């Protein structure tokens, strides 16, 4: 168990290393000059461009920049911004090229938005997906099953930006039941927070619910065919007890691992939803910083995304071992 964890942590560090090197590499090997963008494309004199470049640390070799980034991450570093020197404590992700704000602060500012979006949507997609999948498996071949299967195929064919747009048109423009989403922090007004997030939640949850329903159905059918279920039935247990007590546990184990992975992929799934609804979350921040070549922010977000995915995978494996006693981690 311990050696397993150690290996996973080493693996995670390798993945994050590859990720950060890759991001640095693509931003430096390919054309496009962040200093030019900060300085303004047309109104920038050569002197001022050199100054900006020096301030952003772009005048140094790539390897040096990467080294400074890594030391900043581990022990913190000092960054000179003109006459003043800013200290950036570990874990230092540097400062935004565009706004000079610390990247860590930018990320923590926007994290609540992405978390609100993802966690809310998760509750929805689990309810709909698992409920539909279990029902479908128990009524296999009947109308409910066929209808669920059809809905699943439909749901998986609608990208989140299409379902989101349609929801917006129906509920904000035609019916006018809901406000056009704009983020309200949970702390300041819980009702407005929820009202504004209902549409993004549903848009994001629809696709995911379809995937979960499909997996739940397959997994439930496999579990119901296993020997211990037959035994439980042979003992004369009521069907509700067989399903609720014995089948669900086995059937939901693969779901727990998938859920851990999906939560880890929060940033990826949020990028499209946040862009569509204009929610100021991490996904939107990423798209903006990519378009302005704001390297420190992009690197920070990529590392965060990689970190979350790696953690999600480890949690998934651990959950699997805890829930299914036949699995042992070595």
């Amino acid at each position: 168990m311990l050696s397993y964890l150690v290996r996973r942590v080493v693996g995670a560090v390798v993945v994050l290393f590859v990720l950060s090197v890759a991001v640095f590499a693509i931003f430096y090997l390919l054309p496009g000059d962040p200093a030019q963008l900060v300085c303004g494309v047309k109104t920038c004199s050569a002197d001022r461009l050199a100054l900006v470049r020096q301030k952003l640390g772009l005048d140094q070799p790539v390897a040096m920049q990467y080294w400074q980034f890594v030391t900043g991450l581990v022990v913190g570093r000092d960054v000179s911004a003109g006459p003043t020197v800013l200290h950036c404590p570990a874990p230092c992700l540097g400062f935004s090229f565009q706004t000079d704000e610390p990247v860590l602060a930018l990320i923590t500012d926007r994290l609540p938005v992405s978390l609100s979006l993802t966690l809310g949507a998760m509750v929805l997609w689990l309810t709909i997906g698992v409920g539909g999948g279990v029902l479908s498996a128990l009524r296999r071949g009947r109308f409910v099953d066929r209808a669920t299967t059809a809905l699943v195929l439909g749901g998986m064919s609608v990208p989140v930006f299409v379902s989101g747009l349609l929801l917006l048109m129906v509920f904000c423009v035609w019916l006018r039941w809901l406000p056009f989403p704009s983020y309200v922090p949970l702390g300041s007004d819980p009702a407005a927070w929820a009202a504004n997030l209902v549409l993004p939640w549903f848009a994001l949850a629809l696709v995911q619910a379809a995937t979960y329903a499909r997996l739940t159905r397959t997994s439930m059918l496999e579990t119901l065919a296993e020997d211990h279920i037959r035994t439980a039935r042979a003992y004369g247990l009521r069907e509700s007890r067989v399903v609720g007590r014995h089948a669900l546990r086995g059937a939901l184990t693969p779901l727990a691992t998938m859920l851990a992975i999906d939560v880890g992929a929060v940033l990826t799934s949020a990028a499209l939803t946040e862009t569509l609804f204009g929610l100021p979350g991490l996904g939107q921040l990423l798209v903006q910083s990519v378009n302005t070549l704001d390297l420190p922010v992009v690197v920070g977000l990529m590392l965060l995304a990689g970190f979350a995915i790696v953690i999600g995978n480890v949690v998934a494996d651990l959950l699997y071992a805890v829930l299914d006693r036949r699995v042992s981690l070595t």
Partner: protein
Amino acid sequence: MSVPVETTTRAGTTEDGPPPARSARVVWRRLLADRPAVFGLAFAGLAVLVALTAPLLSALEGQDPVTFHPELVDSARGGVPLGSFGGVSAEHWLGVEPQTGRDLFARTVHGAQISLAVAVGAAVVQVGLGVALGLAAGLGGRWLDHLLGRVIDLVIAFPSLIFSVALLAVVPDSFPRPLLLMLILGLFGWGGTARIVRAQVLSLRSRDHVAAARLAGARPARVAFREILPGVVAPVLSYAAILLPSNMIAEAGLSFLGVGVRPPTPSWGQMLSKATTWFRGDPVYVLVPAILLFLTVLSFSLLADGLRTALDPRAGGLARRAE
């Protein structure tokens, strides 16, 4: 955005391996007995036809996808098309684009070209890389298998959408955009195929016919191509069929985020991205690409589902999806 990966292939779970591969005719007959799959096949075929004949179709309408028609939009109302249903008329079959007045039908059929070409091209890259690396992992000995196994895990777990956004934003516009999209989707999307091929190879390589070929003195390359590769075709084919719709969604997503094909080249994702600011004034502009994208993706998914069932050696006779 990634395709869910089945960790065990179904052929790998049977004791004495899959029954001999079904002949193409049997698969075809089973596919035709499957109503949703036939619908998928018909609509997907139509979409491919439309994409191939896009220039012809827009010429038939008498329009092209890039000419501006400022006289057809209401500049006083911010550029909403004049006329009902987004400016539908005998000259403009689906109306015109808001603000620019470009013909929507021409843009839609040309958009189908990008959407399908990128999806197919990316799938070719994904399958090519996946089969090559999966074969190498399955046949190449322990170290290579271990190494490639890690790489496959990495590719599957990689935050590829985010990385693609970053990559697409910095590559200069002189590089052909659709080709770039194919390559990027392909490079990030081969993990699932490789995993399936590897599992299949591991189960195939201990079979009697492979051992017989080895004993008869066949060289490793011959064993790989003549004895192993044919056994990989069916699972790869049914997985590749799911890759198409998922690539279409990925392309549309990237274009939606503004890093896909560049204007004035039309694409459905890009149209949807513009539509986000127009859905109040011009709902038709949203509905046209939304419905087409949905139907095309759905029909490819139905086709993939049917193909999987038809290729599945476990399902007997013409019995339909009663699993």
